[in-house]
């Protein structure tokens, strides 16, 4: 998008001795501007109903952003492939896999943290943090997720390096694309696609290792003993990785993914994005042309390096667009060219739209990090941090003993032979420690003589308090019968659960005792 406001703004300052006013005036006569009606309309191009994908062949580039991308790729891929193999000793009653999503037993293990289904609010909190984190990152640094960390970006990048390894750099690959199929091309394509497939299989294979004990599943998988679901999952993920990473690539970003649309709506004029400074670059002209007419041409020499390194194959000089994932490789490319020809870097650079406008009217450039210092960023950081800290607090102070009580409603009470009244309850005793624990159930608030027995502790052993052993890492369901003597009555009371170990954790739940008069 060429912003007319930027182009038409009168410039009264000169930042580096160049005649920007002249440059801006000239730029309004560029072919692009002509399309707005300043010159005769060109004939409409022949439009196809369906558009064939134009292959993107990225050129090798080196620079700070490319190195950052290498770094992020190394970290993310390492995390993804290695994590399931990390071991973490939790004793004999819990799995020793550091990160494990145990769907069968409904547990999520992450190092020292173990999440039970009733603690799903931790997961909900993490999702809320992810949401606010998206607001934060997008409002501050634009589509940084798309550019560096998105799996589609990381695997596409990886596959493009495979392309380069087998077929050479951009020009060689374009030549090979056009070349007729022969033994050489078949061999190259075959070996390349084999490597694609191997990467895809490793990728799909790593996924399932998060859901079961990795070494066991690994052996089972290759000896044909794994569950059908495991094979199906690996097959599907291998297929999608192969297809989306090997062939669809930027088509996913441009046509399939909703993220660019959502993120585009969250950006504002104060967000850092990758921008081409058209007020400095236009009108484009080669070095020779610029030598002949020094005042006419801007800094852009139209070498198209920014286009040839772009993983989505766009021209950043056309302005902000849905295809730009802000990976900043065009910044690396342009900076190198500018260095070679002795012009200042940053013709394409991370900048805010507001900053671009200010610079185009002659104000000095500001360091990019200053764009981060604004209330919106701080509010997001504050909210994000507050949720994180409160969740950590909840995690750190939670107890690993829990009781829930549900009284029998049919019948609500039972009259016994001797005139005493019995109520029945279903208790769920949770032992969230990875070892069996003795726990004491006590009755608080019932009249003298109240006794309790359970489905495993007989009536002859009925007492006001009972000790049960709750297995490691489990919820024990206990049916408790409570009887209060003839002539007494009760309403509200609590079951109190105390772990009989050095932790002596205590949890209680209030419930009611139903009497014949109540109904």
């Amino acid at each position, binding site marked *: 998008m060429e912003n007319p406001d930027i182009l038409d703004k009168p410039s009264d300052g000169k930042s580096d001795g160049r005649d920007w006013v002249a440059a801006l005036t000239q730029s309004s006569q560029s072919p692009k501007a002509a399309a707005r009606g300043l010159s005769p309309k060109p004939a409409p191009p022949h439009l196809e109903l369906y558009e064939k994908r134009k292959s993107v062949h990225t050129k090798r580039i080196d620079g700070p952003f490319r190195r950052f991308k290498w770094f992020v790729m190394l970290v993310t891929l390492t995390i993804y492939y290695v994590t399931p193999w990390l071991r973490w000793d939790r004793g004999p009653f819990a799995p020793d896999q550091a990160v494990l999503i145990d769907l069968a037993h409904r547990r999520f293990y992450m190092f020292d943290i173990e999440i039970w289904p009733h603690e799903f609010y931790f997961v909900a909190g993490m999702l809320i943090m992810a949401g606010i984190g998206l607001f934060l990152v997008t409002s501050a640094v634009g589509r940084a997720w798309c550019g560096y960390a998105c799996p589609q970006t990381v695997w596409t990048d990886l596959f493009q390096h495979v392309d380069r390894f087998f077929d050479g750099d951009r020009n060689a690959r374009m030549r090979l694309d056009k070349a007729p199929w022969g033994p050489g091309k078949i061999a190259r394509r075959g070996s390349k696609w084999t490597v694609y497939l191997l990467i895809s299989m490793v990728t799909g294979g790593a996924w399932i290792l998060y859901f079961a004990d990795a070494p066991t599943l690994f052996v089972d998988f290759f000896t044909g003993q794994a569950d059908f679901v495991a094979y199906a999952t690996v097959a599907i993920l291998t297929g999608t990785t192969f297809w989306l990473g090997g062939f669809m690539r930027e088509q996913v970003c441009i046509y399939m993914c909703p993220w660019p649309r959502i993120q585009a709506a969250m950006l504002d004029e104060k967000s850092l994005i990758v921008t081409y400074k058209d007020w400095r670059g236009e009108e484009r002209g080669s070095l020779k042309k610029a030598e002949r007419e020094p005042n006419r041409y801007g800094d852009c020499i139209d070498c198209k390096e920014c286009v040839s390194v772009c993983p989505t194959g766009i021209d950043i000089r056309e302005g902000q667009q849905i295809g730009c994932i802000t990976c900043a490789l065009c910044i690396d490319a342009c900076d190198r060219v500018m260095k070679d020809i002795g012009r200042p870097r940053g013709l394409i650079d991370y900048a805010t739209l507001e900053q671009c406008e200010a610079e185009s009217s002659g104000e000095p450039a500001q360091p990019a990090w200053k764009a981060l210092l604004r209330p919106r960023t701080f509010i997001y950081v504050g909210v994000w941090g507050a949720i994180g800290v409160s969740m950590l607090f909840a995690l750190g102070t939670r107890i690993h003993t829990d009781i829930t009580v549900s009284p029998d409603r049919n019948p609500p009470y039972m009259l016994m032979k001797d005139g005493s009244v019995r109520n029945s309850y279903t208790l769920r005793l949770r032992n969230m420690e990875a070892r069996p624990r003795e726990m004491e159930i006590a009755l608080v608030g019932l009249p003298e003589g109240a006794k309790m027995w359970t*489905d495993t502790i007989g009536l002859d052993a009925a007492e006001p308090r009972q000790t049960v052993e709750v297995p490691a890492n489990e919820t024990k369901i206990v049916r408790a019968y409570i009887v209060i003597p003839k002539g007494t009555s009760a309403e509200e009371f609590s079951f109190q659960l105390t772990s009989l170990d050095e932790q002596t954790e205590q949890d209680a739940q209030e419930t009611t005792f139903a009497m014949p008069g109540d109904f």
Partner: protein
Amino acid sequence: MSDQQKSDIDEATGTEFVGHEWDGIEELNTPLPRWWLWTFYATIAWSLVYVVLYPAWPLVSSATQGVLGWSSRGELAKDIQSAEASRQEVFDQIAAIELANLPDNPALMQQAVAGGAAAFKVNCVQCHGAGAAGYKEYGYPNLNDDDWIWGGDLNEIEYTLNHGIRWDGSDETRLAYMPAFEDIFDRDQVDALANHVLSLSAKAESSAAGAELYAQNCAACHQPNGAGDPIQGAPALNDAIWLYGGDIANIRQQIKAPRHGVMPGWQNRLDPVTIKMLAAYVHSRGGGEEIEAPADVVAETDTQEIASAAEAGGDGKS
């Protein structure tokens, strides 16, 4: 944007406008990616395959069957079959174990109680209620309490389940009839007797006449102290639980013209494992009694064995 309204081509993208405009926002005639078209063709191809393989075209009374012969009803039958197969092992274990020994195996007991609860919902709730609390109005007994007319240990419950009570379908059914005293006692005698019955649980004052009538006519079955006799099916009269109600009017009526409930036996309608599981479930409702060692066994075995047997029974007490 007035320029663009006239123009056919969007300057930024070089794409044609379709000619629709909403508040200055115009629709571009952007071509679809070609792979999208191929995806569309692929879905059509898949639908053709699907129509051949699976039930698809609706006909008058059913639909085309599909080559694979798949149906959702068949899927259900398969699921039920596999669920039954997975339960078979537990069924076999329950079939093999003596009911009296079931409480010694808590895990199996738990399975039996769960299975019994399911069978109870199908076969028993019609009279005894979903919570097994019975209906006093009709004399359907409550199975949660600790009062058992015919005995409340696992074996007695199983016997009742098999043969029923006053059920003409079994020769071994629980049979007990209390005579009607309507034509034998006069009004005052019925009153005196009813008051004596209530006095057994300290709810009324007895009288010499009432006590004498009770001793002569009732104590043989209901016992002198009113404790009842499960062997004869004579209910206890000295506790807080009354099958048909414990007020004087109900007791008077029961003396004059007793009501007798009937329970069908299930031995021919349910398999032995289900009946065992039902017995375990009813026993587990909170009032089940322990199996007592019969007197003749006491005579024959030494005390240590009795102690261990009693202990075993005690462990499994629900």
